[in-house]
Protein backbone atom coordinates (compact mmCIF):
# COMPACT_ATOMS: atom_id res chain seq x y z
CA UNK A 1 0.00 0.00 0.00
CA UNK A 2 1.02 3.61 -0.53
CA UNK A 3 1.96 5.50 2.60
CA UNK A 4 2.90 9.06 3.47
CA UNK A 5 4.71 9.31 6.77
CA UNK A 6 5.55 12.86 7.77
CA UNK A 7 7.98 13.90 10.49
CA UNK A 8 6.79 16.01 13.40
CA UNK A 9 7.54 16.82 17.03
CA UNK A 10 5.35 17.17 20.08
CA UNK A 11 6.62 20.21 21.98
CA UNK A 12 6.13 18.02 25.06
CA UNK A 13 9.66 16.90 24.12
CA UNK A 14 11.08 20.25 25.25
CA UNK A 15 9.23 20.42 28.57
CA UNK A 16 12.43 20.59 30.59
CA UNK A 17 13.77 23.56 28.63
CA UNK A 18 10.47 25.43 28.63
CA UNK A 19 9.88 24.76 32.35
CA UNK A 20 13.29 26.26 33.08
CA UNK A 21 12.75 29.19 30.73
CA UNK A 22 15.55 28.16 28.36
CA UNK A 23 13.30 27.82 25.33
CA UNK A 24 10.25 29.83 24.41
CA UNK A 25 7.58 28.91 21.85
CA UNK A 26 9.55 30.42 18.96
CA UNK A 27 12.69 28.54 20.03
CA UNK A 28 10.76 25.28 20.02
CA UNK A 29 9.18 25.83 16.64
CA UNK A 30 12.38 27.02 15.02
CA UNK A 31 14.24 23.99 16.38
CA UNK A 32 11.69 21.64 14.81
CA UNK A 33 11.75 23.49 11.49
CA UNK A 34 15.54 23.28 11.34
CA UNK A 35 15.23 19.50 11.62
CA UNK A 36 12.70 19.38 8.81
CA UNK A 37 10.19 18.11 11.35
CA UNK A 38 7.50 20.48 10.23
CA UNK A 39 4.49 18.90 11.96
CA UNK A 40 3.91 20.50 15.37
CA UNK A 41 1.94 18.90 18.18
CA UNK A 42 1.29 20.59 21.51
CA UNK A 43 -0.22 19.86 24.86
CA UNK A 44 -2.47 22.88 24.87
CA UNK A 45 -2.08 23.72 28.52
CA UNK A 46 1.67 23.27 28.43
CA UNK A 47 2.18 25.62 25.49
CA UNK A 48 -0.50 28.20 26.34
CA UNK A 49 -0.86 29.56 29.86
CA UNK A 50 -4.44 29.91 30.95
CA UNK A 51 -5.97 27.10 28.94
CA UNK A 52 -8.69 26.08 29.59
CA UNK A 53 -9.94 27.82 32.79
CA UNK A 54 -8.84 31.35 31.88
CA UNK A 55 -8.68 31.20 28.08
CA UNK A 56 -6.02 32.36 25.63
CA UNK A 57 -5.73 35.91 24.29
CA UNK A 58 -6.26 36.49 20.55
CA UNK A 59 -2.72 37.94 20.39
CA UNK A 60 -1.33 34.58 21.49
CA UNK A 61 -3.33 32.78 18.82
CA UNK A 62 -2.08 35.27 16.27
CA UNK A 63 1.49 34.76 17.47
CA UNK A 64 1.10 30.99 16.98
CA UNK A 65 -0.06 31.41 13.37
CA UNK A 66 2.69 33.93 12.69
CA UNK A 67 5.29 31.45 13.90
CA UNK A 68 3.79 28.70 11.76
CA UNK A 69 4.06 30.99 8.74
CA UNK A 70 7.55 32.21 9.63
CA UNK A 71 9.00 28.72 9.96
CA UNK A 72 6.85 26.87 7.43
CA UNK A 73 5.55 24.50 10.07
CA UNK A 74 2.15 22.81 10.22
CA UNK A 75 -0.24 22.55 13.18
CA UNK A 76 -1.01 18.85 13.69
CA UNK A 77 -2.51 18.09 17.07
CA UNK A 78 -3.65 19.74 20.30
CA UNK A 79 -3.43 17.28 23.20
CA UNK A 80 -6.30 18.07 25.57
CA UNK A 81 -6.97 16.79 29.06
CA UNK A 82 -10.68 16.85 30.06
CA UNK A 83 -10.47 17.40 33.80
CA UNK A 84 -13.48 15.31 34.79
CA UNK A 85 -12.22 15.41 38.40
CA UNK A 86 -12.46 19.20 38.52
CA UNK A 87 -15.00 18.97 41.35
CA UNK A 88 -13.87 17.36 44.58
CA UNK A 89 -15.96 14.37 45.58
CA UNK A 90 -18.33 14.45 42.64
CA UNK A 91 -17.98 13.37 39.03
CA UNK A 92 -18.31 15.97 36.29
CA UNK A 93 -21.73 15.56 34.65
CA UNK A 94 -21.80 13.96 31.20
CA UNK A 95 -23.12 17.08 29.45
CA UNK A 96 -20.34 19.15 31.00
CA UNK A 97 -17.71 16.65 29.84
CA UNK A 98 -19.08 16.90 26.31
CA UNK A 99 -19.12 20.70 26.49
CA UNK A 100 -15.51 20.62 27.69
CA UNK A 101 -14.45 18.49 24.73
CA UNK A 102 -16.27 20.86 22.37
CA UNK A 103 -14.34 23.74 23.88
CA UNK A 104 -11.11 21.90 23.05
CA UNK A 105 -12.36 21.18 19.54
CA UNK A 106 -12.90 24.91 19.04
CA UNK A 107 -9.47 25.68 20.46
CA UNK A 108 -7.85 23.14 18.16
CA UNK A 109 -9.65 24.56 15.18
CA UNK A 110 -8.58 28.09 16.17
CA UNK A 111 -4.96 26.92 16.16
CA UNK A 112 -5.36 25.25 12.76
CA UNK A 113 -4.98 21.75 14.12
CA UNK A 114 -6.33 18.72 12.26
CA UNK A 115 -6.63 16.62 15.41
CA UNK A 116 -7.13 16.85 19.13
CA UNK A 117 -5.80 14.11 21.42
CA UNK A 118 -8.01 12.56 24.08
CA UNK A 119 -6.55 10.68 27.05
CA UNK A 120 -7.39 6.99 27.11
CA UNK A 121 -9.42 7.21 30.34
CA UNK A 122 -12.17 9.28 28.70
CA UNK A 123 -15.52 7.53 28.10
CA UNK A 124 -16.30 6.65 24.48
CA UNK A 125 -19.82 8.05 24.91
CA UNK A 126 -18.37 11.50 25.63
CA UNK A 127 -16.34 11.41 22.41
CA UNK A 128 -19.25 10.03 20.39
CA UNK A 129 -21.46 12.88 21.65
CA UNK A 130 -18.83 15.45 20.65
CA UNK A 131 -18.17 13.90 17.25
CA UNK A 132 -20.78 15.85 15.22
CA UNK A 133 -19.30 19.14 16.42
CA UNK A 134 -15.83 17.87 15.55
CA UNK A 135 -16.99 16.97 12.03
CA UNK A 136 -18.44 20.48 11.71
CA UNK A 137 -15.11 22.00 12.70
CA UNK A 138 -13.03 19.68 10.49
CA UNK A 139 -11.28 18.17 13.53
CA UNK A 140 -10.79 14.50 14.41
CA UNK A 141 -10.65 13.41 18.04
CA UNK A 142 -7.95 10.80 18.55
CA UNK A 143 -7.82 8.53 21.58
CA UNK A 144 -4.25 8.02 22.76
CA UNK A 145 -3.51 4.30 23.08
CA UNK A 146 -1.03 4.46 25.96
CA UNK A 147 0.63 1.95 28.29
CA UNK A 148 -0.64 0.00 30.26
CA UNK A 149 -3.33 -0.25 27.59
CA UNK A 150 -2.67 -1.63 24.13
CA UNK A 151 -4.64 -2.25 20.96
CA UNK A 152 -6.04 -5.59 22.07
CA UNK A 153 -7.21 -4.24 25.41
CA UNK A 154 -10.99 -4.51 26.01
CA UNK A 155 -11.27 -0.79 26.76
CA UNK A 156 -9.65 0.10 23.42
CA UNK A 157 -11.87 -2.42 21.64
CA UNK A 158 -14.85 -0.81 23.35
CA UNK A 159 -13.79 2.57 21.93
CA UNK A 160 -13.31 1.03 18.48
CA UNK A 161 -16.75 -0.55 18.60
CA UNK A 162 -18.32 2.74 19.69
CA UNK A 163 -16.64 4.62 16.82
CA UNK A 164 -17.84 2.08 14.26
CA UNK A 165 -21.35 2.13 15.69
CA UNK A 166 -21.43 5.93 15.60
CA UNK A 167 -20.56 5.79 11.90
CA UNK A 168 -18.30 8.83 12.05
CA UNK A 169 -14.81 9.56 10.72
CA UNK A 170 -14.30 12.17 13.43
CA UNK A 171 -13.10 9.61 15.96
CA UNK A 172 -9.84 7.72 15.80
CA UNK A 173 -6.67 6.67 17.54
CA UNK A 174 -3.28 8.06 18.35
CA UNK A 175 -0.88 5.25 19.33
CA UNK A 176 1.87 6.11 21.77
CA UNK A 177 4.92 3.96 20.92
CA UNK A 178 5.56 3.37 24.60
CA UNK A 179 3.24 0.36 24.33
CA UNK A 180 5.97 -1.41 22.33
CA UNK A 181 8.64 -1.44 25.04
CA UNK A 182 10.93 -4.40 24.26
CA UNK A 183 13.82 -3.65 26.56
CA UNK A 184 13.87 -2.10 30.02
CA UNK A 185 14.99 1.52 29.46
CA UNK A 186 18.59 2.06 30.53
CA UNK A 187 17.80 5.56 31.79
CA UNK A 188 15.04 4.15 34.03
CA UNK A 189 17.35 1.52 35.48
CA UNK A 190 20.14 4.00 36.20
CA UNK A 191 17.72 6.43 37.83
CA UNK A 192 16.34 3.74 40.11
CA UNK A 193 19.88 2.75 41.06
CA UNK A 194 20.62 6.41 41.90
CA UNK A 195 17.42 6.35 43.98
CA UNK A 196 18.79 3.50 46.06
CA UNK A 197 17.92 0.27 44.25
CA UNK A 198 20.73 -2.31 44.69
CA UNK A 199 22.32 -3.04 41.33
CA UNK A 200 21.59 -6.79 41.66
CA UNK A 201 17.91 -6.02 42.19
CA UNK A 202 17.92 -3.64 39.23
CA UNK A 203 19.59 -6.32 37.07
CA UNK A 204 16.99 -8.84 38.20
CA UNK A 205 14.08 -6.55 37.39
CA UNK A 206 15.57 -5.61 34.00
CA UNK A 207 16.02 -9.31 33.17
CA UNK A 208 12.46 -10.09 34.24
CA UNK A 209 11.11 -7.34 32.02
CA UNK A 210 13.30 -8.29 29.04
CA UNK A 211 12.17 -11.93 29.43
CA UNK A 212 8.56 -10.60 29.36
CA UNK A 213 7.72 -12.40 32.59
CA UNK A 214 4.36 -11.66 34.16
CA UNK A 215 4.79 -8.63 36.44
CA UNK A 216 3.35 -10.30 39.54
CA UNK A 217 6.02 -13.03 39.55
CA UNK A 218 8.81 -10.48 39.41
CA UNK A 219 7.12 -8.27 42.03
CA UNK A 220 6.87 -11.26 44.36
CA UNK A 221 10.46 -12.37 43.75
CA UNK A 222 11.81 -8.87 44.40
CA UNK A 223 9.83 -8.61 47.62
CA UNK A 224 11.17 -11.98 48.75
CA UNK A 225 14.79 -11.32 47.83
CA UNK A 226 15.16 -7.65 48.76
CA UNK A 227 12.08 -6.73 50.79
CA UNK A 228 10.43 -3.29 50.80
CA UNK A 229 12.40 -0.32 49.55
CA UNK A 230 13.06 1.61 46.34
CA UNK A 231 13.26 -1.63 44.34
CA UNK A 232 9.48 -1.99 44.80
CA UNK A 233 9.08 1.27 42.89
CA UNK A 234 11.24 -0.09 40.10
CA UNK A 235 9.46 -3.44 39.85
CA UNK A 236 6.11 -1.63 39.94
CA UNK A 237 6.92 -0.28 36.46
CA UNK A 238 6.50 -3.83 35.14
CA UNK A 239 2.81 -3.61 35.98
CA UNK A 240 2.42 -0.68 33.61
CA UNK A 241 4.74 -1.41 30.70
CA UNK A 242 5.14 -4.31 28.30
CA UNK A 243 6.31 -5.37 24.86
CA UNK A 244 3.11 -5.41 22.84
CA UNK A 245 3.23 -6.12 19.13
CA UNK A 246 3.37 -3.23 16.61
CA UNK A 247 1.48 -5.28 14.02
CA UNK A 248 -1.66 -4.92 16.12
CA UNK A 249 -1.92 -1.37 14.75
CA UNK A 250 -2.84 -2.82 11.35
CA UNK A 251 -6.48 -3.54 12.21
CA UNK A 252 -6.87 0.04 13.40
CA UNK A 253 -4.86 1.78 10.67
CA UNK A 254 -7.81 3.45 8.93
CA UNK A 255 -8.52 5.33 12.18
CA UNK A 256 -4.90 6.12 13.10
CA UNK A 257 -4.03 9.68 12.09
CA UNK A 258 -1.17 10.71 14.37
CA UNK A 259 1.56 8.91 16.31
CA UNK A 260 3.48 9.70 19.47
CA UNK A 261 7.04 8.57 18.86
CA UNK A 262 7.57 8.20 22.58
CA UNK A 263 11.21 7.66 23.41
CA UNK A 264 13.46 7.48 26.43
CA UNK A 265 16.97 7.32 24.96
CA UNK A 266 18.34 7.73 21.47
CA UNK A 267 21.82 6.28 21.38
CA UNK A 268 24.73 7.68 19.35
CA UNK A 269 24.08 4.83 16.90
CA UNK A 270 20.66 6.36 16.23
CA UNK A 271 18.53 3.65 17.76
CA UNK A 272 16.04 3.99 20.56
CA UNK A 273 17.38 1.80 23.34
CA UNK A 274 14.03 0.13 24.12
CA UNK A 275 11.48 0.58 21.30
CA UNK A 276 11.92 -1.13 17.89
CA UNK A 277 11.25 1.79 15.54
CA UNK A 278 12.40 -0.20 12.51
CA UNK A 279 9.54 -2.63 13.19
CA UNK A 280 7.15 0.24 13.88
CA UNK A 281 7.96 1.85 10.53
CA UNK A 282 7.62 -1.48 8.74
CA UNK A 283 4.10 -1.81 10.13
CA UNK A 284 3.20 1.80 9.28
CA UNK A 285 4.35 1.27 5.69
CA UNK A 286 2.57 -2.09 5.46
CA UNK A 287 -0.64 -0.50 6.72
CA UNK A 288 -0.43 2.47 4.36
CA UNK A 289 -0.19 5.03 7.17
CA UNK A 290 -0.68 8.61 6.01
CA UNK A 291 0.07 11.13 8.72
CA UNK A 292 2.70 12.47 11.08
CA UNK A 293 4.91 10.66 13.52
CA UNK A 294 5.75 13.11 16.28
CA UNK A 295 8.81 12.86 18.50
CA UNK A 296 7.84 12.66 22.14
CA UNK A 297 10.98 12.69 24.28
CA UNK A 298 10.37 11.40 27.78
CA UNK A 299 13.88 10.55 28.93
CA UNK A 300 14.20 14.04 30.40
CA UNK A 301 12.51 13.20 33.72
CA UNK A 302 14.77 10.15 34.11
CA UNK A 303 18.14 11.90 33.72
CA UNK A 304 17.49 15.39 35.08
CA UNK A 305 18.86 14.56 38.53
CA UNK A 306 22.25 13.48 37.17
CA UNK A 307 23.00 15.60 34.14
CA UNK A 308 21.90 18.45 31.94
CA UNK A 309 18.87 17.36 29.94
CA UNK A 310 19.69 17.45 26.24
CA UNK A 311 16.22 17.40 24.76
CA UNK A 312 17.13 19.03 21.46
CA UNK A 313 20.01 16.62 20.81
CA UNK A 314 17.81 13.66 21.69
CA UNK A 315 15.03 14.80 19.36
CA UNK A 316 17.61 15.46 16.64
CA UNK A 317 18.88 11.89 16.92
CA UNK A 318 15.36 10.50 16.64
CA UNK A 319 14.66 12.66 13.63
CA UNK A 320 17.87 11.38 12.04
CA UNK A 321 16.65 7.85 12.66
CA UNK A 322 13.32 8.77 11.05
CA UNK A 323 15.17 10.14 8.01
CA UNK A 324 17.06 6.85 7.74
CA UNK A 325 13.88 4.78 8.08
CA UNK A 326 12.12 6.93 5.48
CA UNK A 327 15.03 7.25 3.09
CA UNK A 328 14.79 11.01 3.43
CA UNK A 329 17.66 13.40 2.89
CA UNK A 330 18.64 15.05 6.13
CA UNK A 331 18.57 18.84 6.37
CA UNK A 332 22.13 20.17 6.82
CA UNK A 333 21.36 21.57 10.29
CA UNK A 334 20.13 18.16 11.41
CA UNK A 335 23.35 16.38 10.40
CA UNK A 336 25.65 18.93 12.08
Amino acid at each position, binding site marked *: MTYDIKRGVSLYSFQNDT*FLGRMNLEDCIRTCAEMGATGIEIIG*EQTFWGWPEVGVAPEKIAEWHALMAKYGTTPVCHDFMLDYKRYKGQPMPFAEQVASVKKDIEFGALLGMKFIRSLVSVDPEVLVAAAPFAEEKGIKILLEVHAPLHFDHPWILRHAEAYEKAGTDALGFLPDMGVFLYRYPRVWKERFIRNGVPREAADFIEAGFNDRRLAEYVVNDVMLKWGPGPQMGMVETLRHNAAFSPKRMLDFMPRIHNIHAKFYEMTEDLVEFSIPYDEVFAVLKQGGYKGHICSEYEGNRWVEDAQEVESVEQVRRQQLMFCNLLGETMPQTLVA
Partner: protein
Amino acid sequence: MFDHRIICEEGFRNVSDAGEVTGFEFLARLPYYRGLGLSMVENLAVTVDGEEIPREDVRFSVRGRSWTLDELETCYDDRWNFGEKATITVKRAGGLPAGRHKLKLAERLRISYLPFVPTTTFETELELAA
Protein backbone atom coordinates in the same frame (compact mmCIF):
# COMPACT_ATOMS: atom_id res chain seq x y z
CA MET B 1 9.86 15.38 37.47
CA PHE B 2 11.69 18.68 37.85
CA ASP B 3 12.17 17.63 41.47
CA HIS B 4 15.02 19.97 42.31
CA ARG B 5 13.26 22.96 40.75
CA ILE B 6 9.91 22.83 42.51
CA ILE B 7 10.87 25.02 45.47
CA CYS B 8 12.63 27.97 43.82
CA GLU B 9 15.94 29.28 45.08
CA GLU B 10 14.81 32.88 44.84
CA GLY B 11 11.92 34.54 46.66
CA PHE B 12 12.33 33.00 50.11
CA ARG B 13 11.77 35.92 52.55
CA ASN B 14 9.70 37.29 55.37
CA VAL B 15 6.62 39.38 54.57
CA SER B 16 5.30 42.40 56.40
CA ASP B 17 2.03 44.23 56.79
CA ALA B 18 2.10 47.85 58.00
CA GLY B 19 5.65 47.45 59.20
CA GLU B 20 4.86 44.26 61.10
CA VAL B 21 6.38 40.89 60.02
CA THR B 22 3.36 38.63 59.58
CA GLY B 23 4.85 35.58 57.93
CA PHE B 24 7.18 34.25 55.27
CA GLU B 25 6.85 33.29 51.63
CA PHE B 26 8.63 31.26 48.97
CA LEU B 27 8.11 30.43 45.32
CA ALA B 28 7.01 27.02 44.09
CA ARG B 29 6.06 25.28 40.86
CA LEU B 30 4.07 22.21 39.81
CA PRO B 31 5.95 18.89 39.46
CA TYR B 32 4.12 18.21 36.21
CA TYR B 33 4.41 18.66 32.46
CA ARG B 34 1.31 20.86 32.28
CA GLY B 35 -0.71 23.26 34.34
CA LEU B 36 -3.65 22.41 36.60
CA GLY B 37 -6.91 24.16 37.47
CA LEU B 38 -6.80 25.42 41.04
CA SER B 39 -9.77 23.35 42.20
CA MET B 40 -7.63 20.26 41.70
CA VAL B 41 -4.84 21.40 44.05
CA GLU B 42 -5.98 19.49 47.11
CA ASN B 43 -3.16 20.35 49.46
CA LEU B 44 0.12 22.20 49.79
CA ALA B 45 1.59 20.94 53.04
CA VAL B 46 4.45 23.12 54.25
CA THR B 47 7.01 22.02 56.81
CA VAL B 48 9.74 24.41 57.95
CA ASP B 49 12.68 23.24 60.02
CA GLY B 50 10.73 20.09 60.84
CA GLU B 51 7.64 21.95 62.00
CA GLU B 52 4.39 21.29 60.12
CA ILE B 53 2.46 24.45 59.26
CA PRO B 54 -1.33 24.31 59.86
CA ARG B 55 -3.25 24.17 56.59
CA GLU B 56 -5.26 27.29 57.44
CA ASP B 57 -2.04 29.33 57.72
CA VAL B 58 -1.05 28.73 54.09
CA ARG B 59 -1.93 31.06 51.19
CA PHE B 60 -1.45 30.41 47.49
CA SER B 61 -0.96 33.29 45.03
CA VAL B 62 -0.51 33.62 41.31
CA ARG B 63 -0.55 36.78 39.20
CA GLY B 64 -1.80 38.97 42.04
CA ARG B 65 -4.68 36.74 43.14
CA SER B 66 -4.55 34.93 46.47
CA TRP B 67 -6.50 32.07 48.03
CA THR B 68 -6.58 29.96 51.17
CA LEU B 69 -6.14 26.25 50.48
CA ASP B 70 -9.84 25.72 51.21
CA GLU B 71 -10.77 28.47 48.76
CA LEU B 72 -8.67 26.81 46.06
CA GLU B 73 -10.99 23.81 46.14
CA THR B 74 -13.87 25.82 44.68
CA CYS B 75 -11.88 28.06 42.34
CA TYR B 76 -12.85 27.15 38.78
CA ASP B 77 -11.70 30.25 36.93
CA ASP B 78 -7.93 30.18 37.38
CA ARG B 79 -5.01 27.78 37.24
CA TRP B 80 -1.43 27.09 38.21
CA ASN B 81 0.29 27.12 34.82
CA PHE B 82 3.13 24.95 33.54
CA GLY B 83 6.38 26.30 34.97
CA GLU B 84 4.59 29.17 36.72
CA LYS B 85 6.14 30.23 40.03
CA ALA B 86 3.40 30.54 42.63
CA THR B 87 3.90 32.40 45.89
CA ILE B 88 3.30 30.24 48.94
CA THR B 89 2.77 32.45 51.97
CA VAL B 90 2.75 31.19 55.54
CA LYS B 91 1.10 33.29 58.23
CA ARG B 92 3.42 33.41 61.21
CA ALA B 93 3.92 36.28 63.60
CA GLY B 94 7.51 37.44 63.41
CA GLY B 95 8.26 35.34 60.34
CA LEU B 96 11.48 33.31 60.38
CA PRO B 97 14.88 34.28 61.84
CA ALA B 98 17.70 35.16 59.43
CA GLY B 99 19.85 32.29 58.23
CA ARG B 100 19.34 28.92 56.54
CA HIS B 101 16.14 26.93 56.88
CA LYS B 102 14.88 23.54 55.79
CA LEU B 103 11.79 23.85 53.65
CA LYS B 104 9.52 20.96 52.70
CA LEU B 105 6.51 21.14 50.41
CA ALA B 106 4.11 18.28 49.72
CA GLU B 107 1.83 18.91 46.74
CA ARG B 108 -1.35 16.82 46.56
CA LEU B 109 -2.90 17.12 43.09
CA ARG B 110 -6.12 15.54 41.85
CA ILE B 111 -5.29 14.55 38.27
CA SER B 112 -8.27 13.16 36.39
CA TYR B 113 -6.59 10.38 34.47
CA LEU B 114 -4.78 8.94 37.50
CA PRO B 115 -6.84 6.38 39.47
CA PHE B 116 -5.46 7.76 42.75
CA VAL B 117 -4.53 11.23 44.10
CA PRO B 118 -0.73 11.51 44.32
CA THR B 119 1.27 13.59 46.77
CA THR B 120 4.72 14.69 45.61
CA THR B 121 7.15 15.96 48.23
CA PHE B 122 10.19 18.24 47.87
CA GLU B 123 12.80 19.32 50.36
CA THR B 124 15.51 21.89 50.19
CA GLU B 125 17.60 24.14 52.40
CA LEU B 126 17.49 27.86 51.66
CA GLU B 127 18.97 31.08 53.01
CA LEU B 128 16.28 33.55 54.06
CA ALA B 129 16.70 36.73 52.03
CA ALA B 130 17.45 39.90 53.99
